[in-house]
C-alpha cells in the first residue's frame, strides 16, 4: 500500500488579506495545522492602505465640507479650516483602532505559523518562502492584486501617485490629474477636491463610473462639477506626461483634438490586476493575467489548491473576498462542498452621497433580454431630504415581470446602510409590494425605498 505523504502543514494560506485571513482562522479552529504567508503587512491591502485609511480621511473631509456649508442651517462656520498632519494622524488612529492591519501577533496567538516573504510554488504541494521550503496538503491562494499602470508615454519617468501613495502625502497637491473614472478614482477626487485641490479626471468611457448605473454616474459627475469644481474629461485618452518644473504637463486626446494641461501630481486609478506571479505553472494551476481560474467551489485546476479574493479578478470588494475565504475554508475542510452566492452582494462607492448597488443593473437586464420594470424615487420626494437639506440622489429598483426585485441602485448619504434591505429582498425573492407594505420609519432615508417599491406595484 502506498505510503501517505507527510506534509509540514495541513493548509498553507498565501496572503493574509480578506481572502486569506478568514480561512486561516477557520481552519485553525477546526484543529488544522496552518501556515500564513504575507509578502507585505499582515492584514493586506484593505486595512493597511486601502478601504480603512481612505474612508477615515473621507469621513474627516465630509465633516469639514458639511461644516463649511453649515451657514444654511444658521450656524457660523466661516473660519473653519483643517490641519493636514492631524488628518493623517486621525487616519493612522483609525487603522490602529480597527486592529486588522499589521496584526501578525493575532494569528500567532491562535497557533497559526506566520511567515513574511514572497511565496513561490515549486511543485503542487511545495512552496518556497525566503528559500525556506514548506509543504502542505491544501493551499489557499489569496495574493490579492496590484495597481494597474496604463501604458502612457512618460508616466514612469515623471512619477505618479497610486490610490495607496496619495494617502501618504504630507499635504494635498494644488492640482491633480486622475487617470481613470471608476469608484476609487471618484472617492479620491472628492477627497482631494474637498481639501482644496483642483481635480481633473481623465476617463476613456463616455461617463464617469462606467461600470455602474447610468444615472448614478451622471449625477456624481454633475455634483463633483457643481460642488467641488472637478473637471471630468470623459472620452479622453491620456497620451503623454512630461515633467515640467515641480509639476507635470499632461497631453490628452478628446474628440480627436489634442490638448494639454499642467498639474502638480498625477494619480493612476485604473483598477487593479491580480498577483499571479508566484510560480502557479509549477503547481499546474490555470490562470490568465486577469486572474486564477476556479470552479464553483473555488478550486483551481489543481484540486487541492483553492483561490479567493482579488486574485480571482472578479470583484475588488473586501466583503466578497471574505465570503470567498469562508467558502474556501468550508470546502477544503468539509465533504459537502458549497458554492458562494453572489446574487445579493452589495457594491459600494463611499463618495458623498454614497453609491450602492446590488443584484442586476439595467444594462445587465438588457444584455440578458429580461422583461423588467424599473421605478425610481428621487430623494427630494421624501421628508428627510428637507430636514437634512440634501436632496441629490435617488433609489432605483428593478423588478422582473412578476414583481420580484432583482436589482437596485441607491445614491444617498446613507446608501451603504440602505442597500442591505434591498439585498435581503433580492436574496429571499421578495416582491416590490411586500417591500412597499413594510412600514418604513418616517424621516428616515429608507422611506425612499418604500416609495420606489410602491411605484412598482402592478
Amino acid at each position, binding site marked *: 500500500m502506498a505510503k501517505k505523504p507527510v506534509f509540514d502543514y495541513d493548509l498553507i494560506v498565501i496572503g493574509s488579506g480578506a481572502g486569506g485571513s478568514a480561512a486561516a482562522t477557520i481552519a485553525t479552529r477546526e484543529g488544522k495545522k496552518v501556515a500564513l504567508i504575507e509578502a507585505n503587512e499582515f492584514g493586506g491591502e484593505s486595512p493597511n492602505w486601502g478601504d480603512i485609511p481612505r474612508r477615515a480621511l473621507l469621513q474627516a473631509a465630509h465633516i469639514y465640507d458639511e461644516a463649511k456649508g453649515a451657514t444654511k442651517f444658521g450656524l457660523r462656520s466661516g473660519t473653519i479650516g483643517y490641519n493636514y498632519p492631524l488628518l493623517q494622524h486621525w487616519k493612522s488612529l483609525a487603522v490602529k483602532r480597527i486592529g486588522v492591519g499589521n496584526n501578525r501577533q493575532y494569528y500567532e496567538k491562535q497557533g497559526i505559523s506566520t511567515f513574511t*516573504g*514572497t511565496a*513561490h510554488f*515549486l*511543485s503542487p504541494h511545495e512552496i*518556497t518562502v*525566503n*528559500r525556506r521550503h514548506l509543504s502542505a496538503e491544501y493551499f489557499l491562494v489569496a495574493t490579492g492584486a496590484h495597481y494597474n499602470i496604463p501604458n502612457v508615454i512618460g508616466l514612469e519617468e515623471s512619477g505618479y501617485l497610486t490610490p495607496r501613495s496619495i494617502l501618504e502625502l504630507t499635504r494635498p497637491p494644488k492640482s491633480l490629474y486622475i487617470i481613470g473614472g471608476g469608484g476609487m478614482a471618484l472617492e479620491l477626487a472628492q477627497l482631494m477636491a474637498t481639501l482644496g485641490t483642483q481635480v481633473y479626471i481623465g476617463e476613456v468611457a463616455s461617463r464617469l463610473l462606467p461600470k455602474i448605473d447610468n444615472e448614478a454616474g451622471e449625477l456624481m459627475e454633475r455634483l463633483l462639477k457643481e460642488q467641488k469644481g472637478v473637471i471630468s474629461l470623459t472620452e479622453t485618452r491620456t497620451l503623454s506626461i512630461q515633467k515640467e518644473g515641480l509639476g507635470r504637463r499632461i497631453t490628452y486626446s478628446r474628440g480627436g483634438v489634442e490638448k494639454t494641461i499642467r498639474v502638480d501630481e498625477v494619480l493612476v486609478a485604473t483598477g487593479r490586476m491580480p498577483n499571479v506571479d508566484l*510560480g502557479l*505553472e*509549477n503547481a499546474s494551476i490555470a490562470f490568465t493575467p486577469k486572474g486564477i481560474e476556479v470552479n464553483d467551489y473555488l478550486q483551481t485546476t489543481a484540486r487541492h489548491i483553492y483561490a479567493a479574493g482579488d486574485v480571482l479578478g472578479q470583484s475588488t470588494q473586501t466583503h466578497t473576498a471574505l465570503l470567498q475565504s469562508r467558502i474556501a475554508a468550508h470546502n477544503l475542510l468539509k465533504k459537502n462542498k458549497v458554492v458562494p452566492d453572489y446574487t445579493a452582494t452589495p457594491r459600494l462607492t463611499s463618495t458623498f452621497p454614497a453609491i450602492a448597488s446590488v443584484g442586476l443593473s439595467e444594462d445587465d437586464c438588457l444584455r440578458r433580454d429580461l422583461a423588467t420594470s424599473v421605478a425610481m424615487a428621487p430623494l427630494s420626494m421624501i421628508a428627510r431630504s428637507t430636514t437634512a437639506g440634501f436632496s441629490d440622489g435617488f433609489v432605483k429598483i428593478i423588478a422582473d415581470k412578476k414583481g420580484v426585485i432583482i436589482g437596485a441602485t441607491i445614491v444617498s448619504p446613507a446608501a451603504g446602510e440602505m442597500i442591505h434591505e434591498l439585498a435581503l429582498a433580492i436574496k429571499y425573492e421578495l416582491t416590490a409590494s411586500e417591500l412597499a407594505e413594510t412600514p418604513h420609519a418616517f424621516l428616515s432615508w429608507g422611506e425612499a425605498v418604500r416609495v420606489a417599491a410602491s411605484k412598482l406595484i402592478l
Partner: protein
Amino acid sequence: MSASTTYIVKRQGKRPTEAFKAEKLHASIVAVCLSVQAPIGQAEATASSVCNEVTVWLDEKPEVTSEDLRRKAAIVLEKYHQDAAHLYKHHHMVI
C-alpha cells in the same frame, strides 16, 4: 534582495540548487538566437536585453525553479525574436 542571491531549484530538486548566473542565461539566449540564423550582433544584443529584464523579474524572488526561469526568458525573448523564443520554449521536444 539582489538578483545575485536568487537560487534556482533544478529539475524539481533532483539536481543541486545553484545560484542564478546571468552569464549562463546570456549564453543560452545567444545560442538559441544563433540557431535560428540571427546575426551574432543581434544575438548578443537580444541576450543582454533578455538578461536585464529577467534579472529585474528575479529581483524580489529568493528562489525560483529552472522551469520558471526558462518560461520567463521565453516570454521576454518573444518580444525580440519570435522564432528564437519558440525554439527556446520547446527545444527539449524539438531535439
